[in-house]
C-alpha cells in the first residue's frame, strides 16, 4: 500500500513537470491556446461532476452557467469596472441563477430534470442573442479587457497557460476536499440510493442544491477566465451543443473521477483539432471514438488504467 502511494506521488510529480514544461517545448501559440481552452473546459467539467458525476443529477445547464460567467465579466470590464471585481460578480450571478433554476426543479428526477436544464440553457442563450445592445447579439463581444490585478496581469498565451494551470490545480484540490467531506459523502449517497441516504439522515434536497450551486460556481469562474483570457466571446461557445459536449467530456473521461474530468476535457478539446486533416470525415471518427470508449470502458478513460491492472492481477 505504501509503495503504491509512493508510485502515485512519483507519477503525479512527473505529470506536473511535463505539464509545466509544455510551453517550452511547444512554442506554437495555437497549441497553447488549445491547451488553455482545454483547461477552462476541465474546470467546467469538474463543476459538472459535482451534480452529475457524484450526486447523479443530469445537468445540461452547465454551458449556460459558463456563459453567464463569461458575459458578466465581459460586460463588467467593458463598462470600466476593475477586473478584480469580476470573479465575485460572475459568482454572484451564477449562484443567483442556480438558485432560481435549482430551488423549484431539483425535486424533479431524471428526464424531467434534464429537460428543465436544457430549457434553462436555451433561455440563457436566447437572452444573450437578443439583448444585443448589451451582449452584442450573435456577433458577440470583442476586445474584452484582460486579467489584471492592481495593474499586473499575464501577457500572452504562455503566461495565461500558467495562470490557468494554477487555477485548475486549486479547482482540483477544492474538489478533492469536498469529496472527502460530509457533503461529498452525502452527494454519493444521494446518487447511490436517495431513500437510503434520507434514512441515514442526509438532507438530499439540500445536497443536490449545493452540488448544483458549487458546479455553477466552477462554471462561472471558468467563464470569467475565458472572457478575460480569450478576450472574445460569442453565444456559440455556450450553446446547447456545448452543454452536450461538456456532458460527453464527463462521460468519456469518467463520471465521478476527478482525473477523468481533466482527461475527458483534454481529449475532447484536442482531438477534433488533431483530426482536422481528415476534413469533414473527422466528425465520423470522433463519434466512433466516443462510442468505442463508452462501450469498451464504461467507467471512462480514467478507468482504463485500473481495469488493466485488475485484468493483469486476475491473469496471474
Amino acid at each position, binding site marked *: 500500500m505504501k509503495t503504491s502511494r509512493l508510485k502515485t506521488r512519483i507519477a503525479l510529480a512527473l505529470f506536473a513537470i511535463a505539464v509545466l514544461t509544455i510551453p517550452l517545448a511547444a512554442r506554437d501559440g495555437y497549441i497553447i491556446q488549445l491547451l488553455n481552452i482545454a483547461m477552462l473546459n476541465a474546470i467546467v467539467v469538474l463543476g459538472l461532476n459535482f451534480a452529475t458525476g457524484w450526486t447523479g443529477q443530469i445537468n445540461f445547464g452547465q454551458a449556460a452557467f459558463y456563459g453567464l460567467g463569461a458575459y458578466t465579466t465581459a460586460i463588467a470590464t467593458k463598462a470600466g469596472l476593475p477586473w478584480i471585481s469580476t470573479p465575485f460578480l460572475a459568482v454572484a450571478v451564477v449562484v443567483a441563477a442556480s438558485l432560481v433554476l435549482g430551488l423549484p426543479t431539483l425535486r424533479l428526477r431524471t428526464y424531467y430534470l434534464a429537460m428543465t436544464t436544457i430549457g434553462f440553457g436555451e433561455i440563457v442563450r436566447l437572452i444573450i442573442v437578443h439583448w444585443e445592445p448589451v451582449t452584442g447579439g450573435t456577433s458577440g463581444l470583442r476586445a474584452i479587457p484582460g486579467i489584471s490585478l492592481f495593474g499586473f496581469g499575464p501577457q500572452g498565451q504562455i503566461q495565461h497557460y500558467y495562470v490557468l494551470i494554477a487555477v485548475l490545480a486549486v479547482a482540483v484540490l477544492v474538489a478533492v476536499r469536498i469529496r472527502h467531506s*460530509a457533503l461529498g*459523502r*452525502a452527494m*454519493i*449517497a444521494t*446518487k*447511490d*440510493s436517495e*431513500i*437510503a*441516504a*434520507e*434514512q*441515514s*439522515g*442526509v*438532507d438530499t434536497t439540500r445536497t443536490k442544491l449545493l452540488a448544483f450551486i458549487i458546479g455553477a460556481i466552477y462554471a462561472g469562474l471558468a467563464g470569467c477566465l475565458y472572457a478575460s483570457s480569450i478576450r472574445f466571446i460569442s453565444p456559440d461557445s455556450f450553446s446547447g451543443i456545448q452543454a452536450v459536449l461538456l456532458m460527453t467530456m464527463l462521460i468519456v473521461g469518467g463520471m*465521478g473521477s476527478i482525473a477523468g474530468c481533466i482527461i475527458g476535457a483534454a481529449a475532447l478539446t484536442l482531438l477534433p483539432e488533431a483530426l482536422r486533416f481528415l476534413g469533414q470525415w473527422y466528425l465520423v471518427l470522433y463519434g466512433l471514438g466516443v462510442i468505442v470508449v463508452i462501450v469498451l470502458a464504461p467507467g471512462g478513460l480514467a478507468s482504463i488504467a485500473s481495469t488493466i491492472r485488475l485484468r493483469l492481477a486476475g491473469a496471474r
Partner: protein
Amino acid sequence: MLKVENLRVSYGHIEVLKGISFDVDPGEIVALIGGNGAGKTTTLSTISGLLRPTSGKITWKGETINSAAVENIVSAGVAHCPEGRRIFPGLTVRENLITGTASRSYRKSEIEADLALVLDLFPRLKERFTQGGWSLSGGEQQMLAIGRALMSRPSLLMLDEPSLGLAPIVIEQVFDKILELNKRTGLSVLLVEQNSAMALDISARAFVMETGTITLSGPSAALADDPRIREAYLGG
C-alpha cells in the same frame, strides 16, 4: 416508547394499512411477521417518515411524529435499516458508516468511538474497512447496513427483512448479532421478517399481519406454539 395507533396508509385509492396498532417498549425486540403484501414494509416506511399516514397516530417517546421530516426522525433516535440493504456502493465501508451520522453533528472523537463499537460488533467490516461498498458479499452488506443505522445512535432500530437473499448460515450470524446488540446495549428492535421462525425465536413479542391488518399478537414463544401460526408460517 414507540406507539402506533390505528394507523391507516394508502397508495392512491388502495388502502394498504387498514388501522393497525402496536407498540415497542424500551429494550424489547418486537417482530412484525406475515406474508408478501401484508403491509410490513409500508409500516416501517411510514414510521420513518418516507410515507404519510391518511389517519392514525405514531408517537415516539410521547411526541407525535406523523408529519416529521425523515432526517428529524432519524435524529430523534429511530433508525431504519431498509429492505434490500441499500448500502452505498460508491462509498468505502468507512464512508458508508460515517454517512450514518449525517443527521447530527458529532465531534470527530465521537465518530471514531462509534466506529470502533460497530467494528467490534462486526469484525468482518474491519477487514473491508477501506474497500468500496460494491465489493461486499450479501451478508457483509447486511452487516454494513445495520452498522450504518447504528452510527446515528438510535434507541430503536427498525430492520426490514434482514434475512432477505442471505444463505441460512449467514442469516443465523446476522440474527445472532441482532440479539447480541440488544443484550449489550439495550437497543429496542422492531423486526420485519418473512422468516417467521427466526423472528419468533429472537423476539419477545410479535404481531402477525395479513393484508393490512394485525390478526394475531402476543408473546413470541406462545405464537410459535399457536397451531394457526404453525400452519400458516412455520410450515406445519
